């Protein structure tokens, strides 16, 4: 928010730029606090924007309103007790937080995971991705004012949550995937339910497309807004749909497969700038919609060849033995690369655990891409980055 001392070229939304130098104003600049209590900041994000009328000259992201000392807390608990804390980070994709942590611990502790557990992880993980993307797509509709799309998405997300509830007894913070496997088996009945859900859900994606993605006003609002060039995305360490929206086919499930992802056939979706420019909000949004289809594809394949067997070594439910050392492992969370860095001193719990949260890295790019937009676009851009404050602040 530093004082601009020289002329800055501020791009205008309708194209072209405007030179702004101090003292050169038609209207007075205004400092506007978006958040921490605001309907569209997806939690407690606070953005301080300097506006000229409704055009944003500069913005600064303030975070930390949801800080819960995750990294310090887990230094005092055992290896298996960490997973409930990971749940609370990205509370919209808790399964993935569990999975990343479990994989990191398994890598350090050389724990063998039963094959069935790996399959269950993939099925549940992709189901979680669908749930998370539905939330993102729906609230994005809410951000641009299409309330019905939001409720359509929530209707379908509700079904996935019920499946999760049946699987592990929880709707949001599952504590399901844990070092060594998963905490409960998927019965045949459950597998059937998931299969039914996929059959039901695939046509519903077209419904979302019809209602929102291809809606003229929606495209008008999102295409060509908040353009994130690829080099900028790479500079800021953006990952996930935000990076893929800028056109790079980077997906850890393909590039550095974990679990058994190398055995599955799916496409990595990238933005193509169909409606506006490459890397605009519509691209980032559309990635999520299309990824839901890919997730359905993966789940179908996994359901077809899930083997019989154990879902966890029972003794591992108590605690895991981890030798001295450190490991880093990243997984493709719905929001990007979720990395766990774990240090062990051979005791009952982690000596140090650090998390690379995708939302945290993605939100950093907000001031860059929101400059020159209007206040209404700010909401659209925040929504297209799809942050979860629990993860940003940890």
């Amino acid at each position, binding site marked *: 928010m530093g004082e601009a001392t020289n002329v800055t070229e501020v791009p205008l939304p309708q194209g072209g730029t*405007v030179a702004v130098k101090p003292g050169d104003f*038609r*209207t*007075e600049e*205004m400092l506007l606090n978006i958040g921490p209590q605001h309907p569209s900041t997806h939690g407690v994000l606070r953005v301080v924007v300097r506006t000229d009328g409704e055009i944003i000259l500069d913005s600064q992201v303030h975070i930390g309103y949801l800080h819960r000392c995750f990294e310090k807390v887990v230094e005092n608990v055992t290896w298996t007790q960490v997973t409930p804390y990971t749940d609370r980070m990205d509370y919209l994709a808790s399964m993935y937080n569990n999975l990343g942590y479990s994989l990191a611990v398994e890598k350090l502790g050389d724990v063998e995971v039963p094959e069935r557990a790996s399959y269950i992880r993939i099925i549940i993980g992709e189901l979680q991705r669908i749930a998370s993307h539905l939330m993102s797509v729906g609230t994005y509709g809410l951000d641009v004012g299409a309330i019905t799309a939001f409720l359509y998405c929530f209707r379908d997300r509700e079904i996935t949550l019920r499946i999760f509830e049946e699987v592990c007894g929880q709707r949001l913070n599952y504590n399901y995937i844990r070092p060594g496997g998963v905490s409960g088996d998927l019965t045949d009945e459950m597998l059937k339910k998931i299969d039914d859900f996929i059959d039901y859900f695939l046509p519903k994606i077209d419904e979302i497309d019809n209602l929102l993605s291809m809606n003229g006003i929606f495209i008008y609002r999102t295409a060509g807004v908040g353009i994130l060039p690829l080099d900028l995305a790479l500079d800021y360490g953006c990952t996930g749909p935000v990076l893929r929206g800028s056109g790079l086919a980077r997906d850890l499930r393909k590039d550095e497969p974990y679990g058994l992802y190398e055995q599955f056939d799916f496409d990595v979706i990238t933005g193509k700038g169909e409606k506006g420019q490459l890397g605009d909000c519509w691209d980032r949004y559309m990635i999520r919609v299309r990824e839901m289809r890919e997730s359905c594809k993966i789940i179908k394949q996994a359901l077809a060849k899930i083997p019989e067997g154990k879902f966890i070594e029972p003794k591992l439910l108590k605690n895991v033995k981890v030798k001295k050392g450190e490991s880093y492992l990243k997984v493709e969370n719905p929001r990007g690369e979720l990395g766990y860095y774990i240090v062990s001193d051979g005791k009952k719990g982690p000596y140090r655990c650090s998390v690379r949260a995708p939302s945290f890295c993605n939100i950093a790019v907000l001031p860059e891409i929101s400059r020159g937009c209007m206040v209404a676009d700010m909401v659209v851009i925040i929504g297209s980055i799809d942050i979860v404050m629990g993860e940003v602040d940890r």
Partner: protein
Amino acid sequence: MNILNTLSILAAAPSEATAIWLPVFFWTFALVSVLSSLAVLVVKDIVRCAFLIMSSLSGLAGLYLLLGAEFLAFTQIMVYVGGILILILFGVMLTNREPLLIKRMKATGLVAPGVLAGLILFTAIGYSVCTVDWKVTDQPLPADADTPARIGNALMSDFILPFEMASVLLLVALVGAAMAARRGGAEG
């Protein structure tokens, strides 16, 4: 019975019974416009001033109704309340440093001369109004006169030149205002 029309019917052809309400309406509207314009003199907050001017001009619109000029009354509301007031408010908001603080205006050092000038002017006007014989007609417009049609005919016949000039003037004013208010317009 047309309730709103009654006002102008009342003015044009007051029956014995309803004429009693005419002064009531007149004084109400007159008080509204005079009091609010007087308040403009006193009130320091410019935004309140703008709203007071609006109420004063609305009172005038009421008086136009009483004078049987409904078309003028509605034009007054549409142009002043819906147009000029918004312009003025935009002007106020765009020229305030602190957009959300009530702006206290300072008066010039001319309060006493201003009041004095107003008083003298009013005395002069009042004197001339009361002394001159205005030749009041005993045949005002009939209440059911189609004033809009008459105005339209007048505009298209007797007043055709001013009417056309007015459109040119409006265009010039539009372009001029847009040019002057353009970003960097001061520099040319």
